[in-house]
């Protein structure tokens, strides 16, 4: 190989510079490890900036009844009990400390009257729980973490004479392969966008923090980077993916004009009083409260409206059901012919709150609709419909350490699986990034300490050369199809056949089509050179998207029930038998394979946090008998963090 490969040596390489990646890197650097942050975009542009509503943490600033136990319960309900309960427990316990830590690093959240961090209502959360800054919470979070990295670099400039001595950001750099040595992680190979030059990071520990897969869908709220890179890198390195069938469609994306279709309309609109109406003007969500949630949601508009000011004596409005429920309801209304002109429903806050409140609480939404759709949300309703937003499935990890199945590999944030079960609650993502980003960074540092007792794994030159040859292939072919065409066909396929409502026939056809697309992708050719060539970059991303989509479609075909972000019209019910099953994807040669793996039984004290009548809706009779006997013996203890 004549090509020069730039080599770097690090202790910990973090792939991804969003919330979880930056939090992991800060932790690894603080533990004294030389840390690289690989950012597919410029520093501070990651998808986390688009998070709007807030960061869920049971600080109890607005309602003192809130606690980690209540947050845990809400998270399990939202995920329809398929969550990795240990992750849900750690998340609920540690989220408040992670939010307070951001404040100590300079974040400026909105305040309560007594000067604490304000918290807002959100779908599925029993109490006001989301720390927020208007509707731009993600921007605040990423900027705070970015500035924390800079603060650490300033310390290193003084102590080491070089700001990048211990933590360095490699901006606009994409990893295409993880490299192993004797079964352990040895490094990561990639290219620098600006030059197209190759770069090799030799490091015993790699943290994947690459986010989601939304760019595989046509209508999505996700940004350019979301091509399932981390999911694919993990699979290719021999790690496993968990429950990839669960893809969240956020109920409220913009639908008009076509060019903005999919852009997110924050759930805060509903948290702050907005309601959904069909073309008959009816608040239809009252017709869609499912049995499992009936006890917690209002039955009349009067009760729902009283809840905003008196939540202790009234039940929640059904507009604040978890996202999967609301997305399906909107879909049903549109299918029944009660949709809007452009095929969505109305989201109305104009008639419900004064203009100045809307402008103060939802400034970005006002701006977004005004600029992009000529709609003044203080005067007229918005037209909204479901948009691909989040993947609950992801890299299978140990709940405490975030370690994947390959030694030296860790995953945190959206790319990891388990935490959110079959459906994520709004606000639980930003907190997930912080809690598990920190844990992954710490575990990676500890792993490096353990490895350093013996010899570090090494990268064979041949492995780097193979990775380079793979990356160059699309540039060296000629006369093939252009990668944009294959990408567009993939997005259409996933949206049409592996979307919100699924069935066996379409999923089988999708799998066959994916095979054909893989063959087409293997033949794409790219014009131009290596320097900042988006066509070439897309050709690399296609491999990842196709691999991940295959896992999504296979898992969706396998799971014969409807739960959270997976709805089968041929199996419309939730099944307690399927709740005991995790679907695990791994790579066998170049084929993704699925296997069933039992879901771990929840610890008795956690089970004891739920009423038996509620557990009956999710668990089998045998689980109930076994679990509740144990729960009676060990009542849920109050723990402080």
């Amino acid at each position, binding site marked *: 190989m004549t090509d020069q490969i730039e080599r770097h040596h690090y202790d910990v390489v973090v792939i991804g510079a969003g919330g979880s990646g930056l939090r992991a890197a800060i932790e690894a650097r603080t533990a004294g490890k030389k840390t690289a942050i690989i950012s597919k975009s410029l520093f501070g542009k990651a998808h986390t900036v688009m998070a709007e509503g807030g960061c869920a943490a049971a600080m109890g600033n607005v309602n003192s009844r809130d606690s980690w136990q209540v947050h845990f319960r809400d998270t399990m309900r939202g995920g329809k009990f398929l969550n990795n309960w240990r992750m849900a427990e750690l998340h609920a316990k540690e989220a408040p400390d992670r939010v307070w830590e951001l404040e100590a690093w300079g974040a400026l959240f909105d305040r309560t009257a007594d000067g604490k961090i304000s918290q807002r209502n959100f779908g599925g959360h029993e109490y006001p729980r989301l720390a927020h800054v208007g509707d731009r919470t993600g921007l605040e979070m990423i900027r705070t973490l970015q500035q924390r990295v800079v603060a650490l670099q300033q310390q290193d400039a003084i102590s080491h004479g070089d*700001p990048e001595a211990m933590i360095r950001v490699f901006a606009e750099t994409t990893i295409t392969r993880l490299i192993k040595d004797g079964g352990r992680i040895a490094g990561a190979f990639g290219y620098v966008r600006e030059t197209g030059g190759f770069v090799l990071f030799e490091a015993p520990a790699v943290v994947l923090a690459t986010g989601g897969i939304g760019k595989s869908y046509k209508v999505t709220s996700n*940004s350019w980077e979301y091509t399932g890179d981390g999911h694919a890198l993990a699979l290719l390195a021999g790690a496993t993916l968990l429950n990839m069938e669960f893809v969240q469609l956020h109920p409220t994306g913009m639908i008009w004009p076509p060019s903005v279709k999919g852009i997110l309309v924050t759930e805060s609109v509903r948290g702050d009083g907005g309601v959904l109406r069909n073309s008959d003007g009816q608040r239809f969500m009252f017709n869609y409260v499912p049995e499992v949630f009936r006890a917690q949601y209002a039955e009349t508009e009067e009760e729902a409206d009283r809840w905003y000011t008196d939540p202790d004596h009234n039940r929640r409005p059904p507009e604040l059901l978890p996202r999967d429920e609301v997305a399906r309801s909107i879909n049903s209304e549109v299918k029944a012919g009660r949709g809007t002109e452009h095929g969505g429903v109305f989201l109305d806050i104009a008639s419900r709150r004064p203009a100045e409140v809307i402008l103060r609480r939802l400034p970005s939404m006002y701006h977004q609709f005004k600029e992009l759709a000529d709609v003044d949300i203080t005067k007229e309703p918005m037209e909204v419909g479901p948009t691909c937003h989040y993947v609950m499935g992801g890299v299978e990890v140990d709940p405490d350490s975030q370690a994947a199945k390959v030694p030296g590999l860790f995953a945190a944030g959206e790319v990891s699986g388990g935490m959110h079960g079959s459906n994520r609650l709004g606000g639980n993502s930003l907190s997930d990034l912080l809690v598990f980003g920190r844990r992954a960074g710490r575990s990676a540092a500890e792993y490096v300490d353990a490895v350093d007792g013996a010899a570090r794994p090494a990268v064979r030159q041949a492995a780097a050369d193979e990775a380079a040859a793979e990356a160059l292939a699309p540039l060296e072919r000629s006369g093939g199809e252009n990668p944009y065409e294959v990408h567009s066909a993939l997005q259409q396929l996933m949206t049409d056949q592996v979307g919100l409502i699924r069935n066996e026939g379409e999923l089988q056809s999708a799998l066959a089509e994916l095979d054909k697309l893989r063959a087409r992708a293997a033949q794409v050719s790219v014009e131009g050179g290596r320097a900042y*060539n988006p066509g070439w970059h897309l050709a690399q991303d296609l491999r990842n998207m196709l691999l991940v989509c295959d896992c999504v479609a296979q898992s969706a075909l396998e799971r014969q029930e409807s739960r959270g972000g997976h709805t089968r019209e041929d199996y419309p019910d939730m099944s307690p038998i399927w709740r005991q099953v995790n679907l695990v994807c791994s790579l066998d040669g170049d084929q993704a394979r699925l296997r069933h793996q039992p879901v771990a039984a929840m610890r008795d004290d956690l089970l004891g946090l739920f009423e038996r009548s509620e557990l009956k809706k999710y668990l089998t009779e045998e689980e109930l008998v076994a679990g509740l006997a144990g729960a009676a013996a060990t009542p849920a203890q109050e723990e402080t963090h």
Partner: protein
Amino acid sequence: MGYQAALRVWRGDHGQGELAEYAVAVNDGEVVLDVLHRLQATQANDLAIRWNCKAGKCGSCSMEINGRPRLACMTRMSIFTPEETLTITPLRTFPVIRDLVTDVSFNYAKARQIPSFTPDPAVRPGEFRMQQVDVNRPQEFRKCIECFLCQDTCHVIRDHPENERAFAGPRFLMRIAELEMHPADTADRREIAQDDFGLGYCNITKCCTEVCPEGIKITDNALIPMKERVVGRKYDPLVWLGSRIGRRPRHDTPAAGGTKG
């Protein structure tokens, strides 16, 4: 409805290049970035564009459209007539990497020189108490998406790279103002705002405010109040007297050490 737009797009690298002419289909409701993406997918696969969220939140797709610094994702085609030729060029203040993508590393270097948030070490996480009225102003500055359009348009550096060493640009002078107005910050950046970051170069023409896609009142709310604070610090007679008789030690925070190299 749909029409063919005439585009002149700068193609080239490292300072060499030319405006290439294209005709690209435009549909109802589209923004400039949609049209550039169509051009990229159908006629110029290797056209370099930096973009990310396409929702006005990440500040990546900054470019100059008919000479005006704009975000391509928030510039609707409907503000132009179908007959109008659109000239699309990279940010002029920064070196071109390729086509519409520029090297904005100047901004990250400046960010690293500003002394970070410095809370009172006695306040533990979770113990901060701040009133909304006191955080409103710095929160306005934290709406910044770092698109660097203000940096691009500012005449102090737009055609004067020689000023780049002495002048941080509106974005980073606003960052200093943000930290100075943060209720829990204890550092004092007034002296370095002037001496190290070049606040005095700003002659408040408000060009930065005009191009800010977030509508932040950079000049009125950050730069002018910061200038007033600097003047208050520099010409405070008590501070002057204290320093003359050696009773008042310098307590201004220096620019971050070792970060200028």
